[in-house]
């Protein structure tokens, strides 16, 4: 057998694991890997980002849209520390990602060598697994184990830190996929007693209500969820990351939960008699004040992660397992039911929300553009088939509220960590992961400028992304809190912005800006017809606010609107 270097073993293992695309940035302690990559460029696409944070967010966008593991490749020291935000983001949002970091040669470890940083120490709290490779012989095993851990059970990010001497050392290469780890059980066996208890509660429920989380998408349980809801006639609402697991126009889909969710789902959480949470983790943005959350209901929690049970909300029935299998087994035991009156009771809330919130956002009386109407018009112009990518803040809440979804894996947004700057690089990964789909990014003027340099990546890769900048010259979400809760003291939220059109032009990206409603439809058409990436700058209402809103720590039934 011919000996190969650890670097080549790394690339061969990535290919063996089915990797087609790597987002990365070379540097001193990754040069041997990049040198071998030169010979492998027809087998492995490398997307050169403009900052390592962008590599992780792009890998996240790629993973979220495709269901495959996203891969980032960076150098040691600053290269590695720049990936931290993306790794933490992927950890909180259960995104399968493998980050390969270069590291100083192992004899120099612990000597404060040039560009040395304790990658293991820094990343352990924010990874599902982290491992340092010091011998070329460990490369294939560690990388394969990384993919197994990242993609199975509750997915998450894994870091593989490869010392430079391990990259250069020669090794007899043999690849054996890791598909068993004795200390790790990714898919727990179902407990049929719990399944029966859950089914019995649902069968006897008069006002059942389901909460749909990203777990449904991650487990590919969209169809099982629909069968389950249809059979027992259970209305459902989703968390932000769970959006698009059910199509927007599905009769039992009652919208989104939480701080900026829909009025009906929030109120009904505190009126239902049985609450069925599927693959969601009762985040504080979903529950509001826990002391007033669903106290009247029996709660059934389906999750693959045992540590989520009773973490925030005490539940009555814990169904540990993969959502797909759990839903299928519970559905088998369900009696067909109808809950006509209960489902109809959502309608007054929907009408109230339309009258007091949605109408003002979609058909305002004055001339100023609203964020919501821009989002809805773009969604409609794509036939509600596009992938929605958002940044964080008002653009995100308006994006997820007013966009419509017709297929799964259509929402790419930073949920748990709330990372401003996520949007632009994530849209790069989303487009590469779903080249056949239209990708629409909604971003604010603050977040766009956090990772603006990734326009260079878009230019080099000749991607086709539709970027809609909702520009209000403010850090809008913070401004909203300042207006509502801090006596309108707008501390450090006003932004003097550059002229974005020449910036887009400089990156050879199509661009247009609009101020008026009359321009909107035509501008959207121009953007969607344009071949390649297009930046549409929509100058929107300066003091726009996202409603309804549950103030932080408040009860979910006490919404401002």
């Amino acid at each position, binding site marked *: 057998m011919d000996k190969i270097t650890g670097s080549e073993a790394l690339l061969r293992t990535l290919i063996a694991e089915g990797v087609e695309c790597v987002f990365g940035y070379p540097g001193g302690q990754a040069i041997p890997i990049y040198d071998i990559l030169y010979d492998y460029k027809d087998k492995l696409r490398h997307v050169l980002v403009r900052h390592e944070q962008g590599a992780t967010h792009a890998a996240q966008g790629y993973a979220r849209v495709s269901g495959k593991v996203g891969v980032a490749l960076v150098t040691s020291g600053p290269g590695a520390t720049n990936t931290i935000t993306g790794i933490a983001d992927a950890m909180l949002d259960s995104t399968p990602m493998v980050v390969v970091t270069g590291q100083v040669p192992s004899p120099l470890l612990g000597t404060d060598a040039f560009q040395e940083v304790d990658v*293991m120490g820094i990343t*352990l709290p924010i990874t*599902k697994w*982290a*491992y340092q490779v010091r011998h070329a012989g460990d490369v294939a095993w560690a990388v394969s184990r990384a993919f197994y851990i990242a993609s199975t059970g509750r997915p998450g990010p894994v870091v593989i830190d490869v010392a430079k001497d391990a990259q250069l050392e020669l090794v007899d290469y043999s690849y054996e996929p890791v598909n068993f780890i004795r*200390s*790790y059980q990714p898919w727990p066996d179902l407990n049929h007693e719990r399944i029966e208890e859950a089914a019995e509660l649902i069968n006897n429920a008069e006002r059942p209500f389901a909460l749909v989380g990203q777990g449904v998408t991650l487990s590919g349980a969209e169809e099982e969820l629909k069968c389950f809801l249809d059979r027992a006639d259970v209305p459902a609402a989703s968390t932000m990351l769970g959006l698009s697991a059910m199509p927007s126009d599905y009769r039992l889909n009652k919208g989104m939960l939480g701080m900026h969710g829909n009025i009906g789902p929030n109120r009904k959480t505190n009126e239902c008699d049985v609450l069925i949470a599927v693959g969601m983790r009762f985040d504080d943005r979903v529950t509001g004040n826990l002391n007033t959350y669903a106290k009247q209901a029996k709660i059934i929690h389906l999750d693959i992660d045992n*540590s989520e049970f009773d973490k925030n909300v005490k539940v009555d029935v814990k169904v540990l397992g993969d959502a797909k299998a759990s839903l299928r087994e519970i559905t088998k035991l369900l009696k067909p039911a109808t809950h006509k009156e209960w489902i109809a009771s959502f309608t007054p809330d929907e009408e109230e929300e339309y009258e007091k919130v949605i109408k003002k956002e979609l058909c305002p009386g004055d001339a100023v553009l609203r964020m919501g109407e821009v989002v809805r018009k773009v969604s409609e112009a794509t036939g509600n088939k596009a992938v929605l990518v958002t940044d964080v803040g008002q653009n995100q809440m308006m994006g997820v509220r007013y966009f419509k979804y017709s297929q799964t894996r259509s929402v790419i947004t930073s949920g748990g960590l709330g990372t401003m700057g996520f949007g632009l690089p994530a849209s790069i990964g989303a487009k590469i992961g779903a080249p056949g789909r239209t990708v629409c990014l909604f971003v604010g003027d603050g977040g766009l400028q956090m990772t603006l340099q990734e326009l260079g990546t878009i230019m080099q890769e000749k991607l086709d992304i539709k970027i809609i900048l909702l520009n209000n010259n403010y850090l809008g979400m913070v401004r909203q809190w300042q207006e509502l809760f801090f006596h309108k003291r707008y501390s450090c939220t006003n932004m003097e912005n550059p002229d974005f059109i020449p910036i887009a032009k400089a990156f050879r990206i199509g661009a247009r800006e609009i101020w008026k409603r009359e321009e909107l439809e035509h501008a959207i058409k121009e953007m969607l017809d344009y071949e390649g990436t297009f930046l549409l700058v929509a100058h929107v209402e300066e003091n726009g606010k996202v409603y309804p809103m549950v103030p932080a720590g408040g009860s979910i039934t006490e919404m401002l609107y």
Partner: protein
Amino acid sequence: MNTENKTLFTIIIFSENMVGLLNQITIIFTRRQLNIETLFVSPSTIAGVHKFTITTFADEATIEKLVKQLDKRVDILKAYYNTDEELAEQEMNNILLTIKPKSNGND
């Protein structure tokens, strides 16, 4: 640390022998502001498996969550907890168990 209204719990962890495992364990305590009172690490009776014995003052709800977080780590085989009283009882049982066969054999 104010240990009033808190119980001393003993947490037992069995893990693979990997670099950084102690670090993985202690950050889970740190994040919840729990002080480790005592810590004992040794190879277990099973080759390749290490045993951690950790004591800490906390309330039971916190310990339950903490142990679940420990158990979740990929390279941890098993994590569980006991109070001091439970452990004393367990040790008594162990003594009884070891004595019994001997006396039976001699009778």
